[in-house]
């Protein structure tokens, strides 16, 4: 009886190890499309979700487009209605993998290669970037930054305002991942 119990406990233990998913629903995504010395075109989303599978290094994230907050409500309206068409394409997603991921090495901060598919405005493109990971008290902080081009995602900027937009839009992401 005792043996069975021990075996059962061990099995449960390995189960837990294999389903170690860390997640957040308060992730931060920021972007900045401003040109130097011109109007600031920047927004922040504080409610992005992200899941990291510690067993495989699978990394997925999702941000709802309507959650991006601008300083200017007018800019926010244009962003949603004219550029991102957020009623048609309500979310931006990333689905990928952290290469050479090893959960045992998380205690010291390190940069990893992150590869995957980024979907914005209904267009999916492969991207490659770096992601910094570090574990502290059972939580993993994951942060990365990369740039995207509007034209890659079929986001049209009218020529009248084109010079106000940077061609390469900077994006920063920050996720504090923990068990649910």
């Amino acid at each position, binding site marked *: 009886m005792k043996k069975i119990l021990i075996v059962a406990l061990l099995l449960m233990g390995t189960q837990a190890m294999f389903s170690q998913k860390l997640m957040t*629903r308060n992730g931060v995504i920021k972007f900045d499309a401003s040109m130097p010395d011109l109007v600031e075109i920047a927004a922040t989303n504080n409610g992005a979700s992200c899941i990291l599978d510690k067993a495989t290094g699978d990394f997925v994230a999702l941000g709802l487009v309507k959650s991006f907050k601008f300083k200017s409500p007018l800019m926010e309206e244009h962003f949603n209605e004219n550029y991102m068409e957020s009623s048609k394409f309500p979310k931006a997603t990333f689905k990928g993998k952290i290469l050479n991921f090893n959960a045992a090495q998380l205690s010291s901060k390190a940069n990893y290669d992150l590869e995957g598919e980024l979907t914005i405005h209904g267009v999916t493109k492969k991207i490659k970037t770096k992601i910094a990971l570090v574990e502290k008290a059972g939580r993993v902080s994951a942060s990365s930054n990369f740039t995207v081009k509007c034209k890659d995602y079929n986001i049209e900027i009218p020529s009248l305002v084109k010079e106000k937009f940077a061609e390469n839009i900077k994006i920063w992401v920050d996720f504090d991942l923990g068990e649910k």
Partner: protein
Amino acid sequence: MKKSTWTLLIVLALAVVGIMSYRCVMYGGARNVSEEKPEFTISSKTIAAEFIADTPGANLKYLEKTVAVSGTVVQTEGQVIILEHDIVCVMKEPNTTIEPNQKVTIKGRLVGYDDLMGEIKLDQCTAL
């Protein structure tokens, strides 16, 4: 007064009006969801079922709309209140009064369906 003083005053006045109208256009006109009448009043169970069954259809129906969702609170965390059936409400003000297991109706703007977490998100929420 001299003519040049007058010109200067007029230019200044025009500049002030210009700056004020620019600020009004750029920073005014924010929506105040808490003062809007909800377009839909619905239980957390029903709205969750609608989003799970047909996400694009539910998006068309609810996105950006002011909705009042009723249900039992399962978790509170800072400015966030989570109702049963995974309705995540970001409150307008930090929450101090609402606690788990309480039955509430929350009014807010429907931001979208997060299919990664299986959650419906609302922001600018107030408790009714």
